[in-house]
């Protein structure tokens, strides 16, 4: 097994350079000569030019290009290029006009009216009008096949096309989060000609008004988009008011971070999401490559518990976990400085995210206190608290939970880790909450939302996962929805947050959590990440 360096050198000479690389990659850094630096990359000396094609590689494929059939970031980051929304978020996360040039919400909060910009056309050449908006909304809230994000549309009673450019939403109750939802990709406006596409819609065809048109989708491999020459930008936070400069945008699937980076270095690919974390410094130092780290992603990663049965039906058990962990240390080990400690239940850039306020009501690392609480509950070195900790795969979360597992062990909480696909985790958490026997579990969950309405969706009974429920919390969360005035709404949100934090129902950990680091070749000029982690290619030109 043990090879001395002299013997190694002999082997190396005998077998030739590449054989040695093959046999002993770990010992041979000398093979690196060719690919360490990147001679092919331009260093920004040329002039940006219009036209051309750009390849954007991510770890997985979209599930669907129908904005109402999927919630994954991998999906909406692509369909956000194909469709547009009535409103948009500017760089500060404030809502601004987009497809709609103006909007009004009635004082009682029961109607919202939008006036559309004129001259917008769908990808199939038909004009975009109030009927398309009505079609989209009614499709989303339909009984037989509703959108998977139906809840976010709120209590819509009816949608009326007042005239060709005016559309009015009527609600059965006031709904404070509606306006900002109209700026989110999940409210993407679908042209009503989609109906004619039948089952092909979202599968092999798409029709929207966004900057890019769908050309083809080879499942598991690539999605080819071409520029929408008729595109007019009214609200996206970009400089280009017209069609994208590039001719083509190709979205590729490459699962391994190392392979994505290798493809970037050889020039096969121009933009990647999630480069290997341990290569970030090397990328920084490389003049041929640039890193972009998304801020205000709306993403939050947190712990939540099965509160319907022991041990976590007792607040002290939840508190013990919250005191035992040291998220700062875990972040430092796993992510370094590309991830931040999050103390709030709503994400940065979202109303109510106030680290100081949240720190006051949440928990910080205090292993002694955790041990005291465990002792009160009757746990000790002889009979440690043993529970299952779940999370979903990817984004280095397997590593985060392993660090947490170590930290928890130090106060005497033994955990068994289970990792799974996000969909499976969603189902599993719900199942755990609905079961009435067996040991309870806890999980590291992640959500991205642009509005504090996330708290309502997660924690208002029955809630997304049938998790923690109390009448008091329901009342607080109802206030966050029905209050339309923004100062009053902020106060309501803070009250709800305080409750969730103090009761250790929602234990915030870190942000962002997935698809938030992008690396581009330096010839990519004008790449931008909008608020809530929306990559924008409208301004991109390639430097020749």
């Amino acid at each position: 097994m043990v090879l001395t360096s002299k013997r190694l050198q002999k082997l190396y000479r005998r077998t030739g350079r590449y054989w040695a690389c093959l046999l002993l990659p770990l010992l041979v850094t000398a093979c690196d000569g060719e690919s360490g630096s990147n001679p092919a990359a331009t260093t920004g000396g040329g002039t940006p030019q219009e036209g051309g094609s750009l390849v954007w590689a991510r770890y997985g494929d979209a599930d669907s290009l129908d904005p109402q059939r999927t919630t994954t970031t991998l999906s909406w980051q692509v369909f956000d290029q194909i469709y547009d929304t009535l409103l948009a978020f500017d760089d500060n996360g404030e809502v601004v006009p987009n497809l709609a040039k103006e909007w009004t919400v009635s004082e009682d909060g029961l109607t919202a009216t939008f006036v559309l910009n004129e001259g917008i056309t769908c990808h199939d050449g038909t004009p975009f009008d109030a009927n398309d908006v009505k079609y989209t909304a009614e499709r989303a809230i339909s009984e037989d096949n509703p959108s998977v994000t139906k809840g976010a549309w709120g209590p819509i009673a009816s949608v009326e096309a007042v005239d060709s450019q005016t559309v009015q939403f009527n609600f059965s109750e006031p709904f404070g989060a509606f306006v900002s939802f109209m700026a989110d990709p999940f409210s993407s406006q679908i042209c009503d000609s989609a109906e004619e596409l039948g089952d092909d819609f979202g599968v092999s065809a798409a029709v929207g008004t966004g900057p890019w048109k769908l050309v083809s989708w080879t499942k598991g491999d690539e999605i080819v988009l071409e520029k929408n020459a008729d595109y007019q930008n009214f609200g996206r936070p970009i400089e280009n008011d017209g069609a994208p400069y590039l001719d083509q945008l190709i979205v590729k699937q490459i699962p391994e971070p190392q392979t994505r980076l290798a493809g970037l270095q050889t020039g096969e690919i121009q933009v990647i999401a999630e480069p290997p974390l341990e290569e970030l410094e090397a990328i920084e130092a490389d003049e041929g490559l640039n890193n972009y780290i998304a801020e205000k992603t709306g993403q939050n990663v947190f712990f939540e518990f099965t509160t319907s049965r022991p041990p976590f039906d007792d607040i002290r058990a939840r508190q013990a976990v919250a005191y035992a962990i040291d998220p700062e240390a875990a972040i430092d080990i796993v992510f370094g400085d590309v991830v931040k400690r999050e103390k709030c239940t709503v994400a940065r850039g979202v109303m109510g995210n106030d680290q100081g306020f949240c720190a006051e009501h949440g928990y910080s690392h205090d292993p002694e206190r955790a041990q005291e609480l465990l002792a009160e509950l009757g746990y000790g070195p002889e009979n440690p608290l043993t529970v299952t900790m779940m999370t979903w795969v990817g984004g280095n979360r397997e590593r985060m939970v392993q660090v947490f597992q170590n930290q928890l062990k130090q106060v005497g909480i033994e955990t068994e880790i289970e990792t799974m696909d996000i969909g499976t985790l969603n189902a599993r958490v719900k199942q755990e909450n609905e079961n009435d026997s067996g040991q309870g579990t806890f999980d590291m969950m992640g959500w991205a939302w642009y509005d504090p309405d996330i708290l309502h969706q997660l924690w208002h009974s029955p809630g997304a996962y049938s998790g923690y429920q109390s009448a008091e919390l329901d009342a607080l969360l109802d206030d966050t929805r029905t209050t339309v005035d923004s100062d009053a709404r902020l106060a309501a949100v803070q009250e709800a947050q305080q409750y969730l934090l103090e009761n250790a129902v929602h234990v915030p950990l870190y942000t962002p959590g997935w698809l938030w680091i992008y690396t581009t070749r330096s010839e990519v000029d004008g790449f931008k990440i909008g608020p809530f982690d929306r990559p924008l290619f409208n301004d991109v030109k390639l430097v020749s």
Partner: protein
Amino acid sequence: MTQNLAQAESTDILEPRSRRTHRFFKDLLRTQSAKLGAAICLVLVLMAVFAPLIAPYDPINMGAGQALTPPNLAHWFGTDELGRDLFSRIVYGSRLTLQVGAIAVGISMTAGVLIGLVAGYAGGWIEAILMRMVDVLFSFTETLIALAAVAVLGPSLTNAMIAVGISSIPFYARITYGAVLVEKNKEYFKAAQAVGARHQRLIFRHILPNILSPIIVVATLGVSIAVLSASALSFLGLGAQPPSPEWGATLAAGRDYFKRAPWITTFPGLAIAITVLGFNLLGDGLREALDPQQRR
């Protein structure tokens, strides 16, 4: 992956038992390669049994050293991305590897031998149905059966062992069946049958001992197949869960640090390869020792 099992199938033992037994060990250890195989297997077993004494660090707890330390005197195989000692993880991983071998082979051998025995002994429509089913399973390939089993059971190391065990049942069934047919036509069996021995006695006292040799050979080679298959499942994320020091899973986790820390992928891979080699060599040796006609 499954081909040496197919090779082992051709083994049939025609020699009387008495002569075989005393020659067995002499023959087994005559070839250098079988000695090497036996030695590797012995080292593996010792490593598993004495893991806490051999491993310098805890395989799960972090803080054994700086993360991603290259191999050095303190950490022979380096450390992983969470600062765990890779050598210790591999030493402890051997326990899981042996467990995989034992459980998977146990499942496939028990079920397969039973099916083969019943089919061969009973004959008639029972034989026809059972062996037809075995043929069908055979044509599915092991990988497909294992994947279907994991799809049903859900990903975990235990389920991966069960899945791998199920997937190899057809091999054992076929070999046992073939061997039973041979024994059934021998004089001693016909004589026993003629004096009216009961089924149980015929199966367990007469047939089973006489067909043990080919089964032992296949089981030894089967350990290597099971280790390969189960580590592949873990590598694909369908087996062991973190922080398990299972070799396939460790290797898969190291993939993210491929360029900077290739030792995390290299050593678990070597460990799997050496283990599999050990059981393959031992299995080849056993076959030659048990079946002189095969010796070439």
